[in-house]
């Protein structure tokens, strides 16, 4: 193949390229692939029997159920919020937007420990609502609602943050056109906006789910650690680790890792799909214009 001077000028000499690829792989090996390999190595060190025994243990099974349940509640809540927030922020101009976006981001930067602490201050027996909740026999802390709340808090910004730039980029022309043509607000949303943001939304959901299943610090503060009842998978890892069952701890950890990897695979698939759709759309546009 002929390499024109221009092409040569807009890429790097092969040696630089190889060096940069080498650096990338080296850095990622040190900080990403080896930790991942360590999880599976430790998990399988005592053999497959121990590995699967750890996963079918009743306490582990209860932890798996609880983790999935929390993600199933927390993600839809943040999904609705994410769409509402992105709609208001991306499609309208108003004063104080920067502060609003910052507040949405805040849970991302708040230490999980603090996230747990504030719910203790709110719902704890000595907290603001504690006495009232106790009087009405409503359990929030050290029960499923508290764990869900902590999960919602730590995954709060993800869907909104995924949608806001996407919807800002798309502008409001299409929606305006639909409205002018007589569509109602909801029709416009369902038929125009939602299809446009579909892939970004799914991407946000995937990230949110992955994070929801892995939260440790905040959940640890509000869980109460009752075995078989309020332990999520990450807490189960800690428990097994503390019981000197290292192989079992890493087995449960590897399950979480697999869940994370599945989520990442789904994410990659979504990106690929979105890419294809965009290309198809561009091609169609090119044809009509041509």
């Amino acid at each position: 193949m002929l390499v024109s001077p221009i092409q040569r000028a807009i890429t790097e000499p092969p040696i630089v390229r190889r060096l940069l690829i080498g650096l990338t792989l080296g850095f990622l090996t040190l900080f990403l692939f080896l930790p991942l390999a360590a999880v599976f190595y430790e998990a399988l060190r005592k053999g497959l029997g121990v590995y699967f025994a750890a996963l079918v243990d009743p306490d582990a099974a209860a932890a798996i159920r609880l983790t999935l349940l929390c993600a199933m509640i927390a993600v839809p809540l943040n999904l609705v919020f994410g769409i509402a927030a992105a709609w208001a922020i991306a499609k309208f101009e108003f004063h104080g937007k920067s502060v609003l976006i910052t507040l949405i981001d805040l849970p991302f930067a708040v230490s999980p420990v603090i996230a747990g602490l504030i719910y203790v201050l709110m719902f704890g027996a000595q907290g603001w609502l504690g006495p009232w909740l106790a009087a009405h026999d409503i359990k929030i802390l050290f029960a499923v609602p508290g764990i869900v709340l902590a999960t919602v808090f730590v995954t709060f910004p993800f869907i909104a943050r995924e949608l806001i730039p996407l919807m800002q980029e798309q502008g409001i022309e299409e929606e305006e056109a639909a409205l002018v043509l007589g569509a109602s607000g909801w029709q416009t949303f369902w038929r125009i906006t939602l299809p446009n943001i579909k892939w970004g939304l799914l991407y946000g959901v995937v990230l949110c789910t992955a994070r929801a299943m892995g939260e440790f610090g905040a959940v640890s503060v509000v869980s109460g650690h009752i075995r078989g009842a309020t332990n999520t998978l990450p807490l189960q890892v800690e428990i097994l680790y503390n019981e000197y069952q290292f192989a079992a701890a890493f087995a449960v950890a590897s399950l979480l890792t697999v869940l994370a990897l599945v989520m990442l695979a789904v994410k990659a698939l979504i990106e690929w799909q979105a890419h294809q759709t965009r290309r198809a759309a561009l091609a169609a546009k090119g044809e009509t214009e041509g």
Partner: protein
Amino acid sequence: MIKHLFQRLSIPILTFGLLTAPALRAADLTLLNVSYDPTRELYQDVNRAFSAYWKTKSGGDNLTIRQSHGGSGKQGRAVIDGLEADVVTLALAYDIDAISAKAGLLPKDWQQRLPNNSSPYTSTIVFLVRKGNPKGIKDWDDLIKPGLAVITPNPKTSGGARWNYLAAWGYALHRNGNDEVKAREFVTKLFKNVPVLDSGARGSTTTFVERGIGDVLLAWENEAFLAIKELGPDQFEMVVPVESILAEPPVALVDKVVDRHGTRPVAQAYLDYLYSDDGQTLIGKHFYRPRNPAIAVRFTQQFPTIKLFTIDEVFGGWQQAQQTHFADGGIFDQIYQ
């Protein structure tokens, strides 16, 4: 259309039902025992034995005993904040005192309600060293030698670590004719030799055993036995100092919770069971020192003889010890300034 919708809905509903069902058809009676880290294995056995005992005694009650374990302070805080423990079995009387003082869930004199200061078992602080004792560690004095690495958890977050600290302090006091200044020097030197302060006792054991850090681990006697048994008799051995502290982990009924749950009789029976012959035998099997001399005799082979002092004798009780040593700005903080 509607049928279709219903079909689609029924899957999540069913899933939800399946997920919540175990909680709903839970056994007739449930107790929650909130405890500290090292007692997991002990209470797993005790719970199994007591459930069977209670079933025959009560004529068929199905009793489920749930366990929650963590650092003693963390667990105490959880109970204060509303974790509904029917019984608490913690590492320090101080933590149950806090539950009484801050949440009023049990009376101030809780420790007088059961025999032996409400401690059905005792333990002490010993050393775990690597096989063959390469550094020749025999007693507390060896721990402050320059260059030795001592592993202990952080007394600020771990109940066991407070016993470690107080054991060292008490030893140094006795050794130096009750000279507080000398004791403080000793403990300062000791902590100079500590390269890692994990937040809990189990974390320290892991650091020592799995990570290969340190020459000696300060540990509960029961933890040292368990670590040797679980992690390799060919790798570690126990060294018993001449003198150490008598650790008395207390148990208590949480009055307000059992009255709300209506579980007072079974919770009381559960604690009493710990003092019974069966309970005491299980305690000995799990390397805690039984209180009942008749049972303790059976385990004399297992437990080495150590001169033991109590926290009341040397430190004037937990409140005092906490104030002087572990409170913010206390002696432990000063050591690290």
